[in-house]
């Protein structure tokens, strides 16, 4: 009846026995690890290896690198790329911050609408804004005179296109960090009679500085590695991304391609690491008892914000709008009559509308399979007990794709899958490899979405079901998935839209039978069929927009149906 605390020296040490659930979860986790190794880690290793080998496969150390840098034409791309990425980042962040600030800190009308408009660029491949810019400012451009003799083909065009392309990414990140503002800090500052400027510099800016830094890194990497805009409008101004393409597709110089691929990977990896550190700090900044900030009306400020957003909207809608308009024009700018002829893709290209069908197939498979793998994978990483090192390793593998530019991933896939020694070589040039590649390419963002949703669940669900002798997969199916359905829909939509719009990774992997709509845009533009390229680009935009709409409707329906238990 009595309890005695005795020294533990004599006590037998215990190893927890792993139950049936434990074994199944571990087995599945191993399977996931193998999958991520094959689709992410091994290809990247193949790329790294390739950059140190010569044409015949013998090791030549840094030979490829020295050859690359000694070619003056090629070495020029490196400073070019840094210039474009640096200038593009400064402009995009400045605009995106103003836009996000106007959205979250003013009482201007149409805020919901403006918020939606900011995301429009996400619906199109990055080729599309470049096409529009050519229509507006190119040799036959309507507004060519605005450039005062400068050419759009080169840094000006690239910068304009990249700003459009990067804008929504920056707005999303900065909006999130501005939304975390604490009303009480502002009230305290006002009570201490701080001027609005002082409040801006001492409260607002410090509050969102991590978001700003994070946005800078993300935007820099995006522009540094983007391929679509410079491909279409770059002219003679070479950047690393177009170099890779030229070396590999144009000259079959895979070794040089591997070198440029590695060069593209470095800044991405560095900014990725920096971003992770910044993100970790941001979490520490959050206070559970913060009161969300709600702006009060201010005529002058609201008017300025409204005018700014309206101007931004002209840019955000005008660019794809131009492409849309141009896609219906018979012969820009000489015969401006409207026609459907540009949409008759089967006339231009043997693939024609089949490319669009391929894109739909790719997007559907990617959304279905990708969402299943990502969500169940995130569940395993989050909810498996024990097996800590393995889970840490998987978590790391899940984060890697964020640091890998699409071009680099695509190139890696060539080196890894187009290798006779690889038993998976049969996948090369199939639709399957496009699906696998696209799933890997956008894995991280989807994984983080799933993890965020899973973390909001009660941590004891699994313990409760174990105590009730219910296997984990039943609880996963009956409880976890239904509760996380909104996140699942978000992931599927994200996969679908990105599979529709991506060019960079798949450009190395498609075959005659699996050509995609986004690739068609590229090829038609290359062949001088700009109007058809614009038309194909518009089919992508419309499809993405329809899907976005579908997602909204679906989420609203889900919300209504589950009102009984969903606390919002």
């Amino acid at each position, binding site marked *: *009846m*009595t*309890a*005695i*605390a*005795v*020294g*533990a020296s*004599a*006590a*037998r*040490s*215990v*190893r*927890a*026995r*792993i*139950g*049936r*659930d*434990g074994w199944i979860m571990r087995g599945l986790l191993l399977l996931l690890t193998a999958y991520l190794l094959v689709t992410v880690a091994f290809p990247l290793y193949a790329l790294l290896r390739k950059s140190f080998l010569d044409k015949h496969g013998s090791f030549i150390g840094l030979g490829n690198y020295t050859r690359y840098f000694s070619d003056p034409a090629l070495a020029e791309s490196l400073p070019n790329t840094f210039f474009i990425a640096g200038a593009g980042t400064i402009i995009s962040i400045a605009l995106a911050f103003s836009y996000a600030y106007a959205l979250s800190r003013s009482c201007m009308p149409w805020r919901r609408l403006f918020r939606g408009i900011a995301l429009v660029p996400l619906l199109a491949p990055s080729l599309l804004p470049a096409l529009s810019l050519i229509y507006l400012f190119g040799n036959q451009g309507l507004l060519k005179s605005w450039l005062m003799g400068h050419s759009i083909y080169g840094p000006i065009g690239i910068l304009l296109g990249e700003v459009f392309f990067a804008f929504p990414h920056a707005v999303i990140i900065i909006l999130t960090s501005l939304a975390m503002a604490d009303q009480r800090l502002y009230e305290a500052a006002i009570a201490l009679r701080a001027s609005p400027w002082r409040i801006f510099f001492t409260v607002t800016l410090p509050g969102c500085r991590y978001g700003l830094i994070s946005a800078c890194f993300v935007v820099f990497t995006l522009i540094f590695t983007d391929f679509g805009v410079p491909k279409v409008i770059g002219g003679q101004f070479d950047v690393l991304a177009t170099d890779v393409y030229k070396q590999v597709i144009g000259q079959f110089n895979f070794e040089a391609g591997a070198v440029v691929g590695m060069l593209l990977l470095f800044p991405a990896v560095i900014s990725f690491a920096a971003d992770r550190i910044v993100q970790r700090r941001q979490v520490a900044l959050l206070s559970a008892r913060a009161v969300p900030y709600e702006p009060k009306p201010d005529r002058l400020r609201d008017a300025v914000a409204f005018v700014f957003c309206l101007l931004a909207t002209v840019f955000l809608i005008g660019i794809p709008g131009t492409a849309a308009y141009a896609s219906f024009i018979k012969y820009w700018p000489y015969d401006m009559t409207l026609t459907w002829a540009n949409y008759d893709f089967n006339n231009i290209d043997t693939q024609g509308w089949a490319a669009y069908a391929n894109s739909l197939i790719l997007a559907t498979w990617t959304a279905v399979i990708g969402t299943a793998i990502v969500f169940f994978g995130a569940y395993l990483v989050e909810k498996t*007990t024990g097996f800590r090192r393995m889970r840490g390793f998987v978590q790391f593998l899940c984060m890697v794709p964020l640091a890998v530019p699409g071009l680099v991933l695509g190139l890696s896939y060539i080196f890894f899958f187009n290798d006779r020694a690889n038993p998976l070589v049969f996948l090369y040039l199939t639709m399957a490899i496009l699906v696998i590649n696209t799933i890997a390419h956008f894995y991280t963002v989807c994984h983080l979405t799933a993890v965020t949703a899973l973390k909001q669940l*009660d941590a*004891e*669900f699994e*313990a*409760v*079901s*174990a*105590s*009730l*002798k*219910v*296997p984990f997969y*039943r609880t996963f199916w*009956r*409880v976890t998935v*239904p*509760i996380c359905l909104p996140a699942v829909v978000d992931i599927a939509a994200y996969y679908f839209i990105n599979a529709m719009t991506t060019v960079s990774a798949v450009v190395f992997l498609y075959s005659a039978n699996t050509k995609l709509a986004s690739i068609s845009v590229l090829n038609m533009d290359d062949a001088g069929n700009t109007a058809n390229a614009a038309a194909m680009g518009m089919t992508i935009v419309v499809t993405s927009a329809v899907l976005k709409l579908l997602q909204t409707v679906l989420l609203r329906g889900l919300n209504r149906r*589950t009102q*009984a*238990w*969903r*606390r919002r």
Partner: protein
Amino acid sequence: MPDNAGGVPYLRIERVTKSFGGFQALKGVSLDIHAGELVCFLGPSGCGKTTLLRAIAGLDVQSAGAIHQAGRDISSLPPAERDFGIVFQSYALFPNLSVAANVGYGLVSRRGARAEIARRVAELLQMVGLPDQGGKYPPQLSGGQQQRVALARALALSPGLLLLDEPLSALDARVRVHLRHEIHALQRRLKVTTILVTHDQEEALTMADRVVVMNQGVIEQVGTPEEIYRRPVSAFVADFVGRMNFLPAEAMGVGRVRFAGMELVCAESFDGLAPGTAISLCLRPEDVVVRGAAERGNVFEARIAELEFFGTHFRAELRPLAAPETMVAADFSINAMQDLDLKAGDKVSVALPAERLRIFPRDGGGAA
């Protein structure tokens, strides 16, 4: 379950240790729990009470030591192979399933007949006092009702052991007191062996058959609520459970201590202490006698430095005239206050009853 107090314990915990990296959350804990008992693990946060509960459930298996349940060594078994029902502080109710589906969650997987399951669910909901709430969803219920649903779900498989992890701490005071009684009554009726983890001493004292007071990974004391309150074995227990005066004093001879320049008689024997050893003289504020103090032993004069009204009583801050730097807290009943017409600043005679005094070494910690 046969009541076999004094015989083989239902749950035997032997020298259980749990380390997280370099930190030892449990340092060789041993404890026997008998069938049908309600045992409370009481202690401040971080004392290891929840760690011990999770080891018993198999959710975080101990690093060393053995746990036997109903004669079976369950030390290394995964939770699904153990026999327990559990209620968490967060309840962990499945929000997308109806109350009935939550309660029947474990029954369904046993492939029982549909009607049989429905009957059992109704019976369980009846038992926890929510007979017509089966169709609702957990978020539509109040905190107290959710708590009952969690309890019904935990009892659905008629487990041999019921584990309650701070089940009442998320509720407001009134509901908490009410549910305390209900859980207690239900446990008595079902005679299910129950472990309740709590940091609320009132909860432990009112509900438990036995209280296990824990601190920094070890068990400080095991006993009935009255034993714990009346005869704390350490300064920690004395301080943690209830209010306690820790008065600086000095051991003198057998049964005698020096406090505030006076010699007091103390019923507790303390043979080990040499005269002159610094000690803490402990007494609960409600044991300080003011009515008829003069006729008793251990009497001294003090000034009432402050009076605080607590509704049911007054708390007085007494300063002995002989040692005004020492503060003695005392609870005076409203009656005594009126009868003796006491006000702040008054001089008053008080007695410290010898049989209520307890003594702990000065370095025992916890002295306030």
